[in-house]
């Protein structure tokens, strides 16, 4: 009943609400510029213009590609190994219980403090950035997958057994569909946190990538560049998250 009502309101009024929110943020930004002055910030319009100009420079794309490479590598490892390990922990109760507090602790510590160790092990460069991105992303994916598997209703499994399904058929028709929405939530959070880890690794002791570009701009006090890069990274993260969330909603609706 409630779901129907929500569905009836969307999507047009929802788009309107998002427009109001974006408008509100832009007004707030303009006001902040008024308070902080030209030396510290650029206005929204100036920033959009500069961003448009930046998007046709080669320097930007070289660094964006470097960030993309590290991000894709970390994502590939985290989003494949994470669910696999999470499923194992979910099914094997003891190892799950052994691992859970360690994973929770790992999730809440400032992982940046471990970055020097990663740098010493992997050396400066792509490998360290991938490793650091993975370290961020893989933990929530494992935790969510583990809980998804644990939360599968026993009655579903019993039904499958009663129907005499093979292990593979059980996996395909019962276990995976039942756990998928929650696993997907983990993957979405893993995506965001991997991005955070990748950008952060570039901000410290790197010679490439958008995080490096950001710190370089700070070094020469290039406010336009800082604002444009910040805007683009925020926009990228928000839009990617919105897309993943709409997929996620569809998955939850199906079950």
């Amino acid at each position, binding site marked *: 009943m409630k779901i129907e009502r929500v569905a009836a309101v969307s999507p047009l009024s929802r788009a309107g609400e998002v427009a109001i929110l974006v408008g509100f943020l832009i007004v707030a930004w303009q006001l902040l510029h008024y308070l902080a002055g030209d030396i510290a910030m650029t206005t929204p319009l100036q920033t959009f213009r500069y961003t448009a100009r930046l998007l046709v420079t080669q320097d930007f794309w070289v660094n964006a590609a470097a960030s993309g490479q590290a991000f894709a590598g970390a994502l590939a490892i985290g989003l494949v190994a994470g669910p696999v390990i999470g499923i194992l922990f979910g099914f094997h*109760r003891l190892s799950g219980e052994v691992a859970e507090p*360690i994973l929770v602790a790992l999730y*809440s510590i*400032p992982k940046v403090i471990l970055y020097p160790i990663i740098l*010493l092990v992997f050396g400066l460069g792509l490998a360290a950035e991938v490793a650091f991105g993975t370290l961020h992303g893989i933990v929530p994916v494992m935790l969510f997958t583990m809980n998804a598997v644990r939360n599968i209703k026993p009655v579903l499994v019993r039904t499958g057994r009663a129907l005499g399904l093979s292990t593979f058929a059980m996996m395909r028709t019962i276990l995976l569909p039942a756990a998928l929405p929650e696993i997907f939530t983990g993957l979405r959070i893993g995506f*965001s946190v991997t991005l955070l880890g990748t950008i952060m690794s570039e*901000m410290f002791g790197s010679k490439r990538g958008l995080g490096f570009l950001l*710190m370089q701009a*700070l070094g020469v006090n290039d406010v336009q560049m800082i604002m444009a890069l910040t805007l683009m990274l925020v926009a990228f993260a928000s839009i990617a998250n919105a897309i993943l969330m709409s997929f996620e909603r569809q998955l939850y609706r199906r079950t």
Partner: protein
Amino acid sequence: MKHGFGIREATLVRAALLAVLVAVLEIACRTGLIQRFTMIPPSEMVVSLVRLFQNRDVLADAGQTLLSVFIALACALVAGFAMGVALYAFPRARRIADPLLTTYYSVPVFVFYPLLIVLFGLNAIPKTVIGFLYAVVVMAINTLNGLERVPFVYWKTAQVHHLSRMQTALHLILPCAGPYLFTGAKFAIAYAFVGVIGSEFILSTGGLGYRVSFAYNNFQSDVMYGVILFVLVIVVCINMALYAWERVLMERRGGR
């Protein structure tokens, strides 16, 4: 019955596993399998950690970090709570802010750090603001969550007994939403640490994060590992204490 036994068993296995891991690291470092340059033996990390307490610079750094975390956290708890209450009171504002709340933590907050340095200068303010920004929204979300889960009958009861707004809030609503507020505060604490120490590590003039990056850049392995261990011990202890306390709270109300 069996479950309780399973948890104790898991604790034992976990302790054994960690002990073996540390022992393997120790041996690998001592035998030169892992070079000294990469990692010092765990036993020396502990020695270095103990020695840190005589190092005035490091103690000053620890004080600076804790002060920033404390200010960021205090502001975040107050502002986050106020935001949660305001969003609960104005459903339309809540609807509009909803996409912001759901996207907020997908944005890598540290990208704002250079901008904050330009705004405030290279001092303790930008890192405190990052800690605040990181912690405030999780508090707001959990406050909102807690308030929304207060059963309607509570409000009704308050009306029947002619309680004032203040009395309703103090005697019914806050105790009922309490566990959610606690969860929010728990995350806010962890996030404030992540925000402040992360900022210090990237670029700053003091603090534990700065001390680690400084030691890394100057090849002071022993100081570096000592401080890393120090930070891990502090944060993990705080988190574990809060986790245990939360469990007690949950059990007192018979689970959720």
